[in-house]
């Protein structure tokens, strides 16, 4: 396997993330109806890729400078606070690679998931990117238990349409301050 690409995470990228994740955002007014169907196309496709555990195809939809972040405290600055995870592309690959080893006990048997993506809103960001927000419930079934993971998700999409791609994905679990059940599938 090729050596994994170096991390591009630097202070500037952190800063952008912090501004994006400011607690529940500045009030941006209603989303733009003309962006909604393009965003939904991407988010629904992403949900299907993840429910079907097509993780490599999912990863291919992320930009080289992407960040996938599950914060613990919604307002926290990840430079001074620990998150549940804050991955660049390299660590996303590690996360998927871990599942592919066949030895990830926490995914033996694997989780079956059903994710509901709703309340989609979208706004243009000045630089050609699109900000999308949605409410998501991922139902995880594993070992006779069905457990919901409810979150508000933020996305920055670099491209819409057929070749949709994600620059940032932030999963803000509503119970991130509470005791979280371990999860080793991708939220």
């Amino acid at each position, binding site marked *: *396997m090729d050596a*994994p690409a*170096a*991390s*591009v*995470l*630097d*202070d500037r990228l*952190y800063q952008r993330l912090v501004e994006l994740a400011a607690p529940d955002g500045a009030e941006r007014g209603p989303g733009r109806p003309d962006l909604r169907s393009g965003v939904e196309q991407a988010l629904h496709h992403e949900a299907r890729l993840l429910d079907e555990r097509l993780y490599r195809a999912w990863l291919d939809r992320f930009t080289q400078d992407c*960040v996938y972040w599950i914060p*613990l*405290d919604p307002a*926290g600055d*990840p*430079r*001074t*606070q*620990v*998150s*549940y*995870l*804050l*991955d*660049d592309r*390299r*660590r996303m*690959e*590690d*996360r998927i*690679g*871990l*599942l592919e*080893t*066949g*030895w*990830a*006990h*926490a995914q*033996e048997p694997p989780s079956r998931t059903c994710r509901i993506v709703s309340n989609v809103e979208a706004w243009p960001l000045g630089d050609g990117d699109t900000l999308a927000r949605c409410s998501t419930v991922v139902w995880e079934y594993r070992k006779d238990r069905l457990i919901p993971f409810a979150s508000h998700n933020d996305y920055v999409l670099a491209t819409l349409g057929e070749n949709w791609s994600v620059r940032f994905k932030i999963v803000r679990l509503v119970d991130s*301050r*509470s*005791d*979280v*059940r*371990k*999860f*080793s599938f991708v939220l």
Partner: protein
Amino acid sequence: MDALDTLIQPHRVHRSLYTDDKIFVAEMERIFGGAWVYLAHESQLPNPNDFIASRMGLRRLILTRDDDGGLHALFNRCAHRASTVCQSECGSARRFQCSYHGWTYSNRGELVNVPFAEGYPPDFDKADHGLAQVPRLGTYRGLIFGTLNLDAPSLADWLGPAGPLIGEFVDRSPSGRIEVRNCQRMIFRGNWKLAWDNAGDGLHPTFAHRSFLVLNERQHGGARSLSQFKASPDDTGMYGLDLGNGHMFVDQRPGLNQSFWETQRPVPGREWYADRIVQRFGDEAPDVLEMAPGSMVNLSIFPNLLIKGNTLETVDPVAVAETRLHTWVAAAAGAPDEVNVLRMRIAEDFPSLGNPDDLEIFERCQEGLAIPEVEWVDMSKGLGHPAEEVAADGVRRAPVTHEGPMRGYLRAWLELMSADAKLTTARAGETSFEKAA
């Protein structure tokens, strides 16, 4: 509850320690009341009038700092009709007012106001109705402990040789202080002692963390995090210590043949932050970088604190088969910011990639323990083995895959469970405080 000493034998432990509700109830009183229990770190309540929620077993506490800087561990239980008086995890408050009938307490625990006081018996004295509190508190290098047992040894004696090891952990910061940041909270469906067994277990990484080992080999090659457990861990010189009083230590450092930083798996931002450190510190950069990864030792302070990596993890029982693990991340006070940014990403690395496999296996153990007829859990590895050494201070040292540390904490468990220690609470002004180090 069978006689407890029949349940713990030199080489094995009875399943009821993990499954019996009556034993659990007794543990919550005797162990989580009779031992010195870790409550929080001083940096979590740095200013006068700060407070933070804590627990001793199932007892909810408000740990407060009064306006003179003194610490108090108040039970979160109104002296009137028992409602909790504080609903926040942390904050700043001089007073706690109960929402039920308005009794109001100072952050020292004194009852300062009873509304509609007319009608109480003439001998009703507010001084008798403050918040009950933990009678003995102490600190060791900023870690705060409490016990309800007036006959417990001093905090310094309780920690014994574990104390200086806490010192080593803290002294990885240039200022000799850590600053505890936020925490990851996880819950698993298993008995709290499954986490405790695991904390001193150098036998499991090769198998339980196989996904992590294989991933690192495939993706990053060479000697990366945990690779010292790839094969024959006992040939590396890694060792475990039974420190007495239930405290355990696992030292992985002899298994490394390069620096901590070189061994550390690449985390997000590694390159940019390492470059900055090289630019700022030149020849000293390797020493600065060495502060970012975890300590490469596991220090477990019985009964509820696991110090590992750069984290303080509290083992917080909820029920006989349910346990919370709160992993508080320590920043190195006085270190360059770059070091602490890296510490945050490193503290997400093994916990999110490796720990789910530990928790899965704890739950599998709890499932296995449900079978009443199969009664025993084996912990015999290393028993009577010539490589087990006992030092003058009573510390027992053994190769890392031996189960000596587990047998050690179970001795402490048995002692606390069998002792009929009198547990007490105190009123405001009646508590004692020991600064052990």
